[in-house]
Protein backbone atom coordinates (compact mmCIF):
# COMPACT_ATOMS: atom_id res chain seq x y z
CA UNK A 1 0.00 0.00 0.00
CA UNK A 2 1.03 3.59 -0.53
CA UNK A 3 2.01 5.88 2.30
CA UNK A 4 3.21 9.42 2.50
CA UNK A 5 5.85 10.58 4.95
CA UNK A 6 5.88 14.34 5.50
CA UNK A 7 9.07 15.69 7.07
CA UNK A 8 9.28 19.20 8.53
CA UNK A 9 11.91 21.04 10.51
CA UNK A 10 10.91 21.09 14.18
CA UNK A 11 9.48 24.24 15.67
CA UNK A 12 12.34 26.36 16.88
CA UNK A 13 14.73 25.16 14.17
CA UNK A 14 15.55 28.05 11.86
CA UNK A 15 14.10 27.45 8.39
CA UNK A 16 15.91 29.95 6.13
CA UNK A 17 14.44 28.29 3.05
CA UNK A 18 10.88 28.82 4.25
CA UNK A 19 11.73 32.38 5.21
CA UNK A 20 13.15 33.09 1.73
CA UNK A 21 10.06 31.61 0.07
CA UNK A 22 7.85 33.80 2.26
CA UNK A 23 9.82 36.91 1.36
CA UNK A 24 9.63 36.03 -2.34
CA UNK A 25 5.86 35.59 -2.13
CA UNK A 26 5.49 38.95 -0.43
CA UNK A 27 7.79 40.45 -3.08
CA UNK A 28 5.52 39.05 -5.79
CA UNK A 29 2.66 41.03 -4.32
CA UNK A 30 0.84 38.28 -2.41
CA UNK A 31 -0.58 40.05 0.61
CA UNK A 32 -0.83 38.68 4.12
CA UNK A 33 1.80 35.93 3.85
CA UNK A 34 2.75 34.94 7.39
CA UNK A 35 5.24 32.27 8.34
CA UNK A 36 6.23 29.86 5.56
CA UNK A 37 7.87 26.53 6.40
CA UNK A 38 9.48 24.24 3.81
CA UNK A 39 9.69 20.46 4.23
CA UNK A 40 9.76 17.35 2.12
CA UNK A 41 7.34 14.59 1.18
CA UNK A 42 8.40 11.00 0.57
CA UNK A 43 5.98 8.53 -1.04
CA UNK A 44 6.43 4.88 -0.14
CA UNK A 45 4.84 1.90 -1.87
CA UNK A 46 5.07 -1.00 0.58
CA UNK A 47 4.19 -4.67 0.01
CA UNK A 48 2.44 -4.66 3.40
CA UNK A 49 -1.35 -4.38 3.02
CA UNK A 50 -2.34 -4.01 6.69
CA UNK A 51 -2.54 -0.26 7.37
CA UNK A 52 -1.39 -0.48 10.99
CA UNK A 53 1.63 -2.62 10.14
CA UNK A 54 2.47 -0.49 7.11
CA UNK A 55 2.31 2.64 9.27
CA UNK A 56 4.56 1.07 11.88
CA UNK A 57 7.06 0.11 9.18
CA UNK A 58 7.03 3.62 7.68
CA UNK A 59 7.52 5.17 11.11
CA UNK A 60 10.52 2.91 11.72
CA UNK A 61 11.95 3.96 8.34
CA UNK A 62 11.42 7.61 9.19
CA UNK A 63 13.16 7.30 12.54
CA UNK A 64 16.07 5.32 11.08
CA UNK A 65 16.71 7.23 7.86
CA UNK A 66 14.03 9.46 6.35
CA UNK A 67 14.02 12.07 9.10
CA UNK A 68 16.79 13.32 11.36
CA UNK A 69 14.85 13.58 14.59
CA UNK A 70 17.44 15.97 16.04
CA UNK A 71 16.07 18.66 13.74
CA UNK A 72 13.01 17.22 12.01
CA UNK A 73 9.60 15.86 12.89
CA UNK A 74 7.62 13.54 10.62
CA UNK A 75 4.06 12.45 9.97
CA UNK A 76 2.95 9.25 8.21
CA UNK A 77 -0.28 9.30 6.20
CA UNK A 78 -1.93 6.19 4.82
CA UNK A 79 -4.38 8.05 2.62
CA UNK A 80 -7.35 7.33 4.86
CA UNK A 81 -6.72 3.56 4.99
Amino acid sequence: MKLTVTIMLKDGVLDPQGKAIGQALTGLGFAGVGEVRAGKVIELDLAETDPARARAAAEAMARKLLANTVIESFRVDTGGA
Partner: protein
Amino acid sequence: MTPGIVLFPGINRERDMAIALTRACGHAPRMIWHTETDLSGIDLIVVPGGFSYGDYLRCGAMAAQSPVMAAVRDHAARGGYVLGVCNGFQILTEAGLLPGALLRNAGLRFISADCHLRVERADTVFAARYQRGQVFRAPMAHGDGNYFADEATLDRLEGEGLVGFRYATPGGEITPEANRNGSARSIAGIYAPNLRVLGLMPHPEDLVDPLMGGEDGKPLFDSLAAA
Protein backbone atom coordinates in the same frame (compact mmCIF):
# COMPACT_ATOMS: atom_id res chain seq x y z
CA MET B 1 49.96 7.20 13.63
CA THR B 2 48.48 5.14 10.80
CA PRO B 3 45.69 7.07 9.07
CA GLY B 4 42.98 5.91 6.72
CA ILE B 5 40.57 7.97 4.63
CA VAL B 6 37.04 6.76 4.03
CA LEU B 7 35.73 7.22 0.49
CA PHE B 8 32.10 7.53 -0.50
CA PRO B 9 30.76 8.19 -4.00
CA GLY B 10 30.66 11.97 -4.33
CA ILE B 11 33.50 12.71 -1.91
CA ASN B 12 35.97 15.18 -3.45
CA ARG B 13 38.37 16.36 -0.71
CA GLU B 14 40.14 13.05 -0.16
CA ARG B 15 43.24 14.02 -2.15
CA ASP B 16 43.75 17.23 -0.19
CA MET B 17 43.36 15.27 3.02
CA ALA B 18 45.82 12.60 1.81
CA ILE B 19 48.42 15.29 1.04
CA ALA B 20 48.09 16.80 4.51
CA LEU B 21 48.26 13.41 6.25
CA THR B 22 51.14 12.12 4.12
CA ARG B 23 53.24 15.20 4.91
CA ALA B 24 52.56 15.00 8.61
CA CYS B 25 52.79 11.23 9.07
CA GLY B 26 55.54 10.51 6.55
CA HIS B 27 53.51 7.85 4.76
CA ALA B 28 50.35 7.80 2.70
CA PRO B 29 47.02 7.02 4.36
CA ARG B 30 45.10 3.91 3.41
CA MET B 31 42.14 4.72 1.19
CA ILE B 32 39.06 2.85 2.38
CA TRP B 33 36.09 2.31 0.06
CA HIS B 34 32.64 2.67 1.60
CA THR B 35 31.86 -1.04 1.23
CA GLU B 36 34.90 -2.11 3.27
CA THR B 37 34.48 -3.12 6.90
CA ASP B 38 38.01 -4.18 7.95
CA LEU B 39 39.75 -1.20 9.56
CA SER B 40 42.37 -3.21 11.43
CA GLY B 41 45.74 -1.55 11.81
CA ILE B 42 44.35 1.96 11.38
CA ASP B 43 44.67 4.44 14.26
CA LEU B 44 42.95 7.45 12.72
CA ILE B 45 39.92 7.31 10.45
CA VAL B 46 39.33 10.49 8.46
CA VAL B 47 35.98 11.18 6.86
CA PRO B 48 36.74 13.89 4.29
CA GLY B 49 34.65 16.57 2.66
CA GLY B 50 32.62 16.51 -0.50
CA PHE B 51 29.08 15.59 -1.39
CA SER B 52 28.65 11.94 -0.42
CA TYR B 53 25.79 10.35 -2.36
CA GLY B 54 25.04 13.74 -3.87
CA ASP B 55 23.77 15.02 -0.50
CA TYR B 56 20.58 13.06 -1.23
CA LEU B 57 17.92 13.22 1.51
CA ARG B 58 20.19 15.22 3.88
CA CYS B 59 23.93 15.90 3.84
CA GLY B 60 25.61 12.78 5.16
CA ALA B 61 22.40 10.80 5.68
CA MET B 62 23.11 8.08 3.13
CA ALA B 63 26.81 7.78 3.96
CA ALA B 64 25.97 7.34 7.64
CA GLN B 65 24.15 4.09 6.77
CA SER B 66 26.96 2.60 4.65
CA PRO B 67 28.86 -0.57 5.69
CA VAL B 68 32.10 1.25 6.45
CA MET B 69 30.38 3.57 8.94
CA ALA B 70 29.36 0.61 11.09
CA ALA B 71 33.07 -0.24 11.24
CA VAL B 72 33.93 3.39 12.01
CA ARG B 73 31.42 3.33 14.90
CA ASP B 74 33.13 0.20 16.26
CA HIS B 75 36.53 1.89 15.81
CA ALA B 76 35.31 4.91 17.80
CA ALA B 77 33.78 2.68 20.48
CA ARG B 78 37.20 1.01 20.89
CA GLY B 79 38.70 4.46 21.50
CA GLY B 80 40.09 4.93 17.99
CA TYR B 81 40.66 8.40 16.58
CA VAL B 82 38.14 9.81 14.09
CA LEU B 83 38.29 13.14 12.24
CA GLY B 84 35.37 14.32 10.13
CA VAL B 85 35.78 17.49 8.07
CA CYS B 86 32.95 19.32 6.32
CA ASN B 87 30.77 16.59 4.80
CA GLY B 88 32.68 14.28 7.14
CA PHE B 89 31.39 16.29 10.13
CA GLN B 90 27.86 16.03 8.71
CA ILE B 91 28.30 12.27 8.31
CA LEU B 92 29.54 11.87 11.91
CA THR B 93 26.47 13.68 13.26
CA GLU B 94 24.14 11.65 11.05
CA ALA B 95 25.89 8.47 12.24
CA GLY B 96 25.34 9.48 15.86
CA LEU B 97 29.06 9.75 16.64
CA LEU B 98 28.67 13.44 17.46
CA PRO B 99 25.57 15.29 18.71
CA GLY B 100 23.58 17.92 16.82
CA ALA B 101 23.18 18.52 13.11
CA LEU B 102 24.45 20.82 10.36
CA LEU B 103 21.66 22.90 8.87
CA ARG B 104 21.51 25.04 5.76
CA ASN B 105 23.69 28.15 6.15
CA ALA B 106 21.64 30.92 7.75
CA GLY B 107 22.14 33.12 4.67
CA LEU B 108 21.09 30.24 2.38
CA ARG B 109 24.17 30.71 0.21
CA PHE B 110 27.04 28.30 -0.26
CA ILE B 111 30.06 29.92 1.42
CA SER B 112 33.45 29.59 -0.24
CA ALA B 113 35.77 31.84 1.76
CA ASP B 114 38.40 31.80 4.45
CA CYS B 115 37.32 32.03 8.06
CA HIS B 116 39.22 32.28 11.32
CA LEU B 117 38.98 29.64 13.99
CA ARG B 118 39.71 30.09 17.68
CA VAL B 119 41.20 27.06 19.42
CA GLU B 120 39.00 26.45 22.47
CA ARG B 121 41.24 23.76 23.95
CA ALA B 122 44.67 22.51 22.95
CA ASP B 123 44.99 19.53 25.28
CA THR B 124 43.78 17.04 22.66
CA VAL B 125 45.52 14.84 20.09
CA PHE B 126 44.04 17.05 17.37
CA ALA B 127 45.06 20.46 18.69
CA ALA B 128 48.23 19.85 20.73
CA ARG B 129 50.39 21.91 18.36
CA TYR B 130 48.12 24.92 18.74
CA GLN B 131 47.80 27.11 21.81
CA ARG B 132 44.51 27.57 23.60
CA GLY B 133 42.98 30.82 22.34
CA GLN B 134 45.14 30.81 19.21
CA VAL B 135 43.39 31.95 16.02
CA PHE B 136 44.17 30.38 12.67
CA ARG B 137 42.82 30.73 9.18
CA ALA B 138 40.90 27.93 7.46
CA PRO B 139 39.05 27.77 4.15
CA MET B 140 35.35 27.03 4.35
CA ALA B 141 33.36 25.55 1.47
CA HIS B 142 29.89 24.46 2.41
CA GLY B 143 26.20 25.09 1.99
CA ASP B 144 25.14 23.31 5.17
CA GLY B 145 27.49 24.25 7.98
CA ASN B 146 25.10 25.90 10.40
CA TYR B 147 25.66 23.87 13.56
CA PHE B 148 22.48 23.17 15.50
CA ALA B 149 21.74 21.35 18.73
CA ASP B 150 19.07 21.91 21.35
CA GLU B 151 19.93 24.21 24.24
CA ALA B 152 20.49 21.35 26.67
CA THR B 153 22.97 19.71 24.30
CA LEU B 154 24.78 23.01 23.69
CA ASP B 155 25.03 23.59 27.45
CA ARG B 156 26.38 20.08 27.93
CA LEU B 157 28.97 20.54 25.14
CA GLU B 158 30.16 23.79 26.71
CA GLY B 159 30.02 22.46 30.26
CA GLU B 160 32.08 19.39 29.39
CA GLY B 161 34.54 21.41 27.31
CA LEU B 162 33.70 19.62 24.08
CA VAL B 163 33.61 22.69 21.86
CA GLY B 164 36.91 22.45 20.00
CA PHE B 165 36.85 25.42 17.65
CA ARG B 166 34.72 28.53 17.17
CA TYR B 167 34.37 30.99 14.32
CA ALA B 168 36.12 34.19 15.38
CA THR B 169 37.53 37.44 14.09
CA PRO B 170 41.26 37.46 13.23
CA GLY B 171 41.73 38.99 16.68
CA GLY B 172 39.96 36.11 18.37
CA GLU B 173 36.64 37.77 19.15
CA ILE B 174 33.39 35.84 18.82
CA THR B 175 31.01 38.04 16.84
CA PRO B 176 27.89 37.41 14.73
CA GLU B 177 29.76 38.73 11.66
CA ALA B 178 32.55 36.18 12.07
CA ASN B 179 29.97 33.39 12.32
CA ARG B 180 28.95 33.48 8.68
CA ASN B 181 26.93 30.28 8.51
CA GLY B 182 24.92 31.09 11.64
CA SER B 183 26.16 28.24 13.81
CA ALA B 184 24.81 27.97 17.33
CA ARG B 185 27.25 29.67 19.72
CA SER B 186 29.69 30.09 16.79
CA ILE B 187 30.59 26.41 16.98
CA ALA B 188 32.85 25.22 14.14
CA GLY B 189 34.08 21.96 15.66
CA ILE B 190 33.13 19.62 18.49
CA TYR B 191 34.65 16.64 20.24
CA ALA B 192 33.09 13.42 21.49
CA PRO B 193 33.33 13.02 25.30
CA ASN B 194 36.54 10.94 25.03
CA LEU B 195 38.16 13.74 22.93
CA ARG B 196 39.11 11.18 20.29
CA VAL B 197 36.42 12.08 17.76
CA LEU B 198 36.46 15.55 16.19
CA GLY B 199 34.02 17.03 13.70
CA LEU B 200 35.12 20.28 12.05
CA MET B 201 33.34 22.26 9.33
CA PRO B 202 36.21 24.27 7.70
CA HIS B 203 39.16 22.66 5.91
CA PRO B 204 42.53 22.76 7.74
CA GLU B 205 43.88 20.29 5.13
CA ASP B 206 43.74 23.04 2.52
CA LEU B 207 46.31 25.23 4.25
CA VAL B 208 49.31 22.99 4.87
CA ASP B 209 51.86 24.43 2.43
CA PRO B 210 53.01 27.95 1.50
CA LEU B 211 51.99 27.09 -2.06
CA MET B 212 48.41 26.76 -0.81
CA GLY B 213 48.63 30.23 0.68
CA GLY B 214 49.60 29.32 4.20
CA GLU B 215 50.29 26.62 6.75
CA ASP B 216 47.61 27.47 9.29
CA GLY B 217 46.13 23.98 9.19
CA LYS B 218 49.44 22.13 9.48
CA PRO B 219 49.59 22.04 13.30
CA LEU B 220 46.41 19.94 13.39
CA PHE B 221 48.01 17.22 11.29
CA ASP B 222 51.35 17.51 13.08
CA SER B 223 49.48 17.07 16.36
CA LEU B 224 47.87 13.88 15.07
CA ALA B 225 51.13 12.55 13.63
CA ALA B 226 52.81 12.99 17.00
CA ALA B 227 50.03 11.25 18.94
